[in-house]
């Protein structure tokens, strides 16, 4: 089991991670979500032994990794947010490079490369130079490079950033398979639906702190007393938004182009009021949906902002 105990990290005077406690039991898949600058990547870097915490401990099977990170590193695969590959080399050459770094050689190395290429679906492009690959293919190879030494624990830092929906679906399917095979997973993403699909437990992070954690159901319970209303309007009007906030003081209102999201207690019946305010402000509502709570709503409820803000 990988554990973070009161983990903090300061860069000069700025404390980017504050007293984080996390647990990652064997075979479980954990999601870590938070907006940009929340401290996710720094937390991951500390958990994976890349940087030393200012205070606190990371324990692997009960032993601190600060002094001896090797036992963890042997079992750990990390998929970074960046495409950490050599663009001038072929897919196979890249995998061979990372395999050699992990001490694999000869027939074993060749077998592992073939196995990984199959998993990530790049067998037919293995001889092609990486710089000619699409974004999705590079992302898949980026994952493959972390699998050569057969890690039992995989940390993925936003592995689907900037790729097409088809590649994203392929990657999610592949990762889901890893989880089903019993690999422990720590997954960070901006896409809440990815975390909902892959993870059993979720940690929500904001401004360097874990503000909530639990199973998806437990977290959704936090907003079970809430309702989310999505309004599609033809022209967003600043007065309309202001009037909504004034007349519905318990509501959190967020605007994204023509979509207005209102989060508020379930016991209120706001639709009539909302339509009245819209009419007063000459705003035409083209669609209105009352939604079932999602992790996105949990995040909105806890932080007052959307995950991708």
């Amino acid at each position: 089991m990988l554990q973070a105990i009161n983990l903090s990290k300061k860069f000069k005077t700025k404390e980017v991670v504050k007293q984080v406690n996390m647990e990652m039991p064997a075979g479980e898949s954990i999601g870590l979500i938070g907006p940009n600058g929340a401290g996710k990547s720094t937390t991951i870097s500390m958990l994976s032994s890349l940087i030393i915490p200012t205070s606190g401990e990371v324990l692997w099977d009960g032993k601190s990794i600060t002094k001896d990170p090797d036992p963890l590193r042997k079992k750990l695969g990390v998929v970074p947010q960046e495409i950490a590959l050599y663009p001038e080399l072929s897919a196979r050459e890249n995998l061979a490079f990372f395999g050699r770094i992990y001490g694999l050689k000869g027939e074993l190395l060749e077998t592992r490369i073939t196995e990984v290429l199959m998993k990530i679906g790049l067998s037919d492009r293995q001889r092609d130079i990486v710089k000619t690959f699409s974004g999705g293919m590079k992302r898949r190879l980026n994952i493959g490079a972390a699998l050569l030494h057969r890690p039992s624990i995989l940390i993925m830092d936003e592995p689907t950033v900037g790729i097409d929906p088809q590649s994203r679906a392929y990657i999610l399917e592949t990762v889901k398979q890893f989880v089903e095979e019993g690999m422990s997973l720590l997954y960070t993403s901006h896409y809440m639906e990815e975390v909902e699909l892959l993870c059993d437990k979720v940690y929500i992070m904001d401004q360097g702190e874990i503000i909530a954690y639990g199973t998806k159901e437990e977290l959704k319970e936090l907003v079970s007393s809430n309702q989310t209303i999505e309004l599609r309007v033809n022209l967003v009007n600043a007065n309309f938004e202001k009037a909504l906030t004034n007349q519905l003081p318990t509501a959190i209102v967020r605007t994204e182009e023509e979509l207005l999201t209102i989060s508020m207690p379930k016991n209120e019946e706001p639709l009539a009021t909302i339509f009245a305010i819209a009419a007063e402000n000459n705003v035409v509502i083209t669609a209105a949906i009352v939604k079932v709570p999602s992790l996105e709503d949990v995040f909105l409820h806890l932080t007052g902002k959307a995950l991708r803000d």
Partner: protein
Amino acid sequence: MMGIWIARLQNLKRKPIVLIMMTVMTLVMAYVLGASSNGKMSISVAVDGSETTQAVLERLNDDDGYLFREITEEELQQKAKKDIRMVGILLNKTSYTVLAASESDSVRNLSLLIDSAYKDISFKQRVINVGGEDTWTTVANSIQDDQAFSLQMEAMDESEVFRYDNALQSLFGFMLFFVFYTVSINVQFILDDKRSGVWNRLKLASISRFQLYFSHLSFSYAIGLIQMLLVLFVFRYILNTNMYDGFWNVIFIAAIYVLIVMAFSVLVISLVKTISQSSVVISLAAVAFAMIGGAYWPLEIVQSEGLLAIRWLSPVYYAMEAMKRVTVYEGTLSSVWTYVSMMVGIAIVLLVVGISLLEKRTERYHSSE
């Protein structure tokens, strides 16, 4: 280490253009510019027509470093007024005048050579006056036969006189200049690996920082050295360039020079954020170091005191001087230990500072999420 070397070689195989270009440029530039002159410094000379001055001129013409062109005294004066770069001499029976716009090492060396010629002629004249021609022949033969005496005299002369070999000046100059780019571009791989995240992946595979730096730097070093060896071997064994029996000493100095260039490149990448910034700094530094270090022209002809004062800042200066000393001046390795030890010392300091700064920057990458 092998893994990193293999990956770097594969990268080089896919993008060999920089190495090829730098090597070819060195060969072409050194060959073209080195062959454009016979390697001698041209000096205008006017003589008074006496026997002594003719003898002095003959003696001066024996020196390989200069080409003396005889003109009239009037022409010499005119030329001196018009051309501030001109160095001329006026030889009289008992004295001589060196005409130059400013006093420099080259002028001082020329004066030493003329002094020496006058002394030789005067000595010969005195021997003839006392004992006649036969006695002089005996003395001259005895000086020639006495190897120890003869060698000692030569050594004293060689070290004092400014000597110039245009072929070697061009070869060393361009070789030191172009290898700067080759080594720096290779060292930039560290920055590239850090920014792309490959560096972190390697650290997670339990590769120590020492192994990481050593693998990358040793590869960059090897490529730089191979380029220099290639150039030197082509000039020595294919173009038959005279290296004055100092060929292996030059290779030793080249090996030390690559070390200091590598260390400087590490410092540069530790101070910049991107590869393009690093390339700009390296380009500026390479040209500046070559200029003030005497790669483009011999420093002996430089008259600016300011430029001469800052030559110590340039790694090219140490290598250039050391290479010239062990070839043109026919010196031994022990005569260039100052330059060599300066290069090694500076390289160590730059490496330590550069790697420390790079490590601090690695922390900053993590803070910039």
